[in-house]
């Protein structure tokens, strides 16, 4: 059974690699720029995505009353003696520890947005359709980065909601 699953998984990977290669081969330069923007911003947001993902799992488990894994939370929360903290406080420090990465991500994304807008605000506009549809590579990078920005925003907002809800729970439930 394991061997069969392994073969199937390998076939799936080969199929995915083939699909990606064909997609790249037939992509327009703008689509390649979009792919590169997506990949680059995924690297930039990697710590945020995994951090918020882990924090959401931690806060959901703590809110449900089960005992979550404290090891990752204690490693991520930048506070002395994290082992003495309750679950809600630990989640709060973890959320706060991710803020610098969030601000750095949004700063780079905002810079990219401004550059993209600067390319679109060239007057007089020679071709209205080209302006609406966009033809610049930097705009492709921007759209790729926007997918990652949406993921970061959604995960961050969900994590914040869960942490605030955890802090509002009665004290005995979270210690």
């Amino acid at each position: 059974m394991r061997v069969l699953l392994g073969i199937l998984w390998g076939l799936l990977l080969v199929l995915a690699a083939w699909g990606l290669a064909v997609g790249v081969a037939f992509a327009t330069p703008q689509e390649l720029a979009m792919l590169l923007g997506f990949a680059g911003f995924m690297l930039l947001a990697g710590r945020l995505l995994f951090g918020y993902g882990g924090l959401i799992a931690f806060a959901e488990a703590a809110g449900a009353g089960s005992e979550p894994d404290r090891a990752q939370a204690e490693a991520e929360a930048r506070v002395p003696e994290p082992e003495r903290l309750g679950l809600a406080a630990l989640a709060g420090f973890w959320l706060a520890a991710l803020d610098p990465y969030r601000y750095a991500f949004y700063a780079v994304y905002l810079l990219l947005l401004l550059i993209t807008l600067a390319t679109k605000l060239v007057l007089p506009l020679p071709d209205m359709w080209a302006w609406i549809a966009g033809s610049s590579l930097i705009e492709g990078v921007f759209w790729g980065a926007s997918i990652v920005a949406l993921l970061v925003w959604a995960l961050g907002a969900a994590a914040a909601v869960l942490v605030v809800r955890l802090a509002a729970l009665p004290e005995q439930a979270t210690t």
Partner: protein
Amino acid sequence: MKQYRSGSVQAVVIWTLVIALLLGFAIGSFSAASRARAAVAAAETLAAGIPPSPVVTSARYDKANDQLVLQVLNPGLVPVKLIDQSLVFKPGAASQQEAYALTAIPLGVEVAPLSAVEVELKLKPESEKLEVGDVVAASVSYTHPFSKDLYVLTHVFKVNEEAAKGKEQKEPAQPQMNQAKPQKGGK
């Protein structure tokens, strides 16, 4: 905790879905537009490689100046140079004029891509006016940028009652392209 707004996970999910729909629409438009632009560029490159051949879309007899005026359309994407013209006149039953031929009268007109020009072919000086039943075969030689060869376009103008009065004689099927603007004081 004050810097975080409290809300619900459901609201975050719904807003994420709404934004994701809009974002997907924008990204799909961007991708489709880039593909459309690539297709148009490829089609233009292809069309610019097709050798042009000028088309006479209409002709008229200019009685006052005793000349034949041809509307020559270049439907291609590269310019055409009209080098010289020749003319063969064959009289009808009503004409007093004898048959004649004029050859290699310099023309030197460049027809820009996707546009039309009026080419004037002078009839033989001091010949009789065209009468019903006369036939004029006008030949224009031209070159295009893809070869050094000389090509010839021949238009046969049969004079009927309307043509003798100077009315425009259009070819039965007209290409659906931009036509030359009517000249001032023409017709």
